[in-house]
C-alpha cells in the first residue's frame, strides 16, 4: 500500500502545502518495495544528473548560447525519477513543457538532449523543436508540448491504441497544476475512465502556473480530487520524497495496467523562474529558501541513503561529480555539433 492517501481529502494539508513524508525508515521501506541498494543509488545519481542538466541549461542561457526559452525542473527531480522507475521502460511517456527531468529519467541520451537544447542538427529533433519539444520515439517518449494541457487528451488516444492492440504497456502523461484547468483535462479524464484505458496521469503541482498561485486558479484543492468526478482513484502525495513517489506510482501504474486509470498529484516546487521572462515577483524569497533548505528532494534522499549506510559522503560526492562531468560532456558534444543546414528548412513538413 502506498503511503499517499487514496481518495480521502488531504485538502487542508495541501492548502498549507505541508505534506509530511512517510515515517518508516529507508531500509525497511526499500525492502518492502524490493529496491536494491544499486537501484536506490542509481535513482540518486539520476536526480543529480537532472539537477546539473537544469543548472547547466540556465548557465548556457546566461552565457547567451541559447536562442529561445526554456522551462527548468530543478527541485522536481523526485517526481521524474520516482515515476520513471515505477513504470516499465517500454511504457509510453507524454511529457509537458517542463520535461527535461522526465526525459532524463526515462533514459534519454543527454548528449542528444543538450544538442537539441542548443538547436543543433544532432539533437533529438534535428534542432527543430528545442527545449519545449524534445521527443525520443525510439524509447517511447512521445514528446513534450508547448501548449499547456495539450498532451492530456492525446494520452486518451495512446491508451486506446494500447487497448485495441491488447498491449500490456501503459501511457504516463505528465502535466502541471495549471494545465489541470484546461478544458481537455475534463474531456480526457472522463474518456479514460469511461473506456478503462491504461493511462497514468501525473499532475506535477509545483504550486504555480507561471505566476498564478494554485489557490488563485483552482476553486478546490487538491487538484487530484477532481478525479472523483469520473470515479477514478487519485492520490495527492509528497512529490519531493522519492520513495513516496515510487511507491505510489507502482500501485497506480499497476492499476492503470489492469484497466483502471489513475490520477496522481505530486506536491513539489520549481526552483528557477517559470521561464526566461520570469522576475519572481509573485513569490517570496523566504518561500523559495524554505523549499531549498527543508524540502529539497535530493538532499532529503541523500541524507536517508547515508543514514541507512547505503551511501557515504565520499560516494555521494563522486556520484555528483560524475553526473556533472556527464553534463559537461554533453555540452561539449552539443557545442561541437553542426547547426541544421538552412537548405533543409522545408524537410519534415510532410512525410
Amino acid at each position, binding site marked *: 500500500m502506498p503511503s499517499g492517501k487514496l481518495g480521502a481529502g488531504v485538502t487542508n494539508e495541501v492548502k498549507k502545502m505541508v505534506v509530511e513524508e512517510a515515517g518508516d525508515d529507508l531500509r525497511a521501506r526499500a525492502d518492502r518495495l524490493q529496491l536494491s541498494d544499486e537501484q536506490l543509488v542509481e535513482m540518486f545519481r539520476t536526480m543529480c544528473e537532472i539537477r546539473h542538466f537544469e543548472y547547466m541549461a540556465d548557465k548556457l542561457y546566461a552565457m547567451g548560447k541559447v536562442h529561445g526559452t526554456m522551462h527548468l525542473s530543478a527541485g522536481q527531480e523526485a517526481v521524474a525519477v520516482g515515476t520513471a522507475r515505477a513504470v516499465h521502460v517500454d511504457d509510453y511517456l507524454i511529457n509537458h513543457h517542463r520535461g527535461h527531468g522526465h526525459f532524463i529519467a526515462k533514459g534519454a541520451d543527454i548528449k542528444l538532449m543538450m544538442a537539441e537544447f542548443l538547436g543543433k542538427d544532432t539533437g533529438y529533433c534535428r534542432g527543430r*523543436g528545442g527545449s519545449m519539444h524534445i521527443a525520443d520515439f525510439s524509447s517511447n517518449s512521445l514528446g513534450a508540448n508547448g501548449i499547456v494541457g495539450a498532451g492530456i487528451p*492525446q494520452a486518451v*488516444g495512446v*491508451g486506446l491504441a494500447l487497448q485495441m492492440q491488447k498491449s500490456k504497456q501503459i501511457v504516463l502523461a505528465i502535466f502541471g497544476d495549471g494545465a489541470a484547468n484546461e478544458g*481537455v483535462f475534463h*474531456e480526457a479524464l472522463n474518456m479514460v475512465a469511461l473506456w478503462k484505458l491504461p493511462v497514468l496521469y501525473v499532475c506535477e503541482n509545483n504550486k504555480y502556473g507561471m505566476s498564478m498561485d494554485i489557490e488563485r486558479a483552482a476553486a478546490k484543492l487538491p487538484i487530484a480530487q477532481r478525479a472523483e468526478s469520473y470515479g477514478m482513484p487519485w492520490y495527492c502525495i509528497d512529490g519531493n520524497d522519492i520513495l513516496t513517489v515510487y511507491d505510489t506510482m507502482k500501485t497506480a501504474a499497476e492499476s492503470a495496467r489492469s484497466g483502471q486509470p489513475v490520477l496522481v498529484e505530486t506536491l513539489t516546487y520549481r526552483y528557477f523562474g517559470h521561464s526566461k521572462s520570469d522576475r519572481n515577483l509573485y513569490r517570496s524569497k523566504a518561500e523559495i529558501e524554505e523549499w531549498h533548505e527543508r524540502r529539497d528532494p535530493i538532499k532529503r534522499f541523500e541524507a536517508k541513503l547515508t543514514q541507512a549506510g547505503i551511501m557515504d559522503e565520499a560516494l555521494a560526492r563522486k556520484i555528483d561529480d560524475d553526473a556533472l562531468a556527464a553534463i559537461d560532456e554533453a555540452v561539449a558534444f552539443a557545442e561541437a555539433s553542426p547547426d541544421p543546414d538552412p537548405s533543409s528548412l522545408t524537410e519534415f*513538413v*510532410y*512525410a
Partner: protein
Amino acid sequence: MPEITYLEAVRQALWEEMKRDDRVFLLGEDIGRYGGAFGVTHGMLDEFGPERVRETPISEATIVATAIGASMLGMRPVAEIMFMDFIYLALDQLVNQAAKMRFMFGGRTTVPIVLRMPGGSGTGAAAQHSQSIESMFMHFPGLKVVNPSTPKDAKGLLLTAIRDPNPVVFVEHKLLYKTKGQVPEGEYTIPFGVAEIKRPGKDLTLVANNVMVMRSLAVAERLAKEGIDVEVIDPRTLLPLDTETIIESVIKTGRLLVVHEACQTGGWAGEVIASVTGSRAFDYLDAPVRRLAGKDVPIPYNRLLERAAVPQEEDIECEIRAIVTGKY
C-alpha cells in the same frame, strides 16, 4: 460503372479500407446506431463493432487528440466532425499538434489521421452549422486538404487520405451527399495534388470546388450553346494545390474566374489568383482575374437570404458573361 451517391461513395471507401486494414477505425459522435448526422456511417457499427466504430462523448478537442495519440502508435483513425463548424473546438489539436508534430520532432514521427467533416450551406442550419472553411486549412503547413465534388472523387480521394501518412482534412458537402455519379468497379485511388478538368473549354478558365463544380458545369453547358466555351477545373485537393494545371489552362484561355461558396475575403480564390498572376500566365491574361464567392456574412437561416449568400447558377452565368464580354 455502377452509379452511387456521394454519401455511398464515402461509406464504401471507409468500409473497404476497414476491411483491408485493421489499423483503421472510426471515431466520432453518434456514428454508430444513428449512423452520423447525415447517415454516412449507417450500418458500419453492425459490421465492424463498437471498438472500430467508436462513439465518443461530445468532446471534439479530445476526439481529434485521441486520433492523434492513436496514430502515433500505428493506428489509422478516421474521425468524423459532425459539422465542419465544430472543428474550431479542436483546432489546437489539429493545427498546433497534428500539423506541427512531424516538423517539431525533426521528422521522427508521423500523424496519419483523417478528419471527415461536412461543410456548406443550403439546409437551413444557420450560421453555426453551415460554414465553408476549407480555405482556412490551406494556411496550416503539415495538413492536407481534400474537397471532392463527385462520388468518384470522394471514394478515390478518401482511400488516398486514409493511406496518407500525414494529417488530412477531408471536406464533404451536405448538398452533395445525395448526388449520384459513376464510380469505377473495384479498388482505385486518386492522387492528391492533381486537379481534374471537368469540362474542357477555350474561352475562360473557371476554377471551382464541391457544389460550385456542379453549378458551374450546368452553366457551362448552357453557355456552350451560345458559343461561350468554358473550361471548368476542380482542384479536388486544395493543399496540395495543382497550380500547374490551372496556369496551363489560363495560358490557353487568357481569362480566369474562381468560384467558391466560402466567404470571399480570405477565401482560397485569392490563393489561386495569386499563384496565376505571379506566374508566367500573367502575360497571357486578357481580362482582370475575377472571383465569385460567398458574401462576407455568416450563413442566415431564412431560405431566401441563405440562397443569396452563396453563388447560384444565375450568378455564375452573369459573371462569366461579364468577363467574356469585358463588361463589369
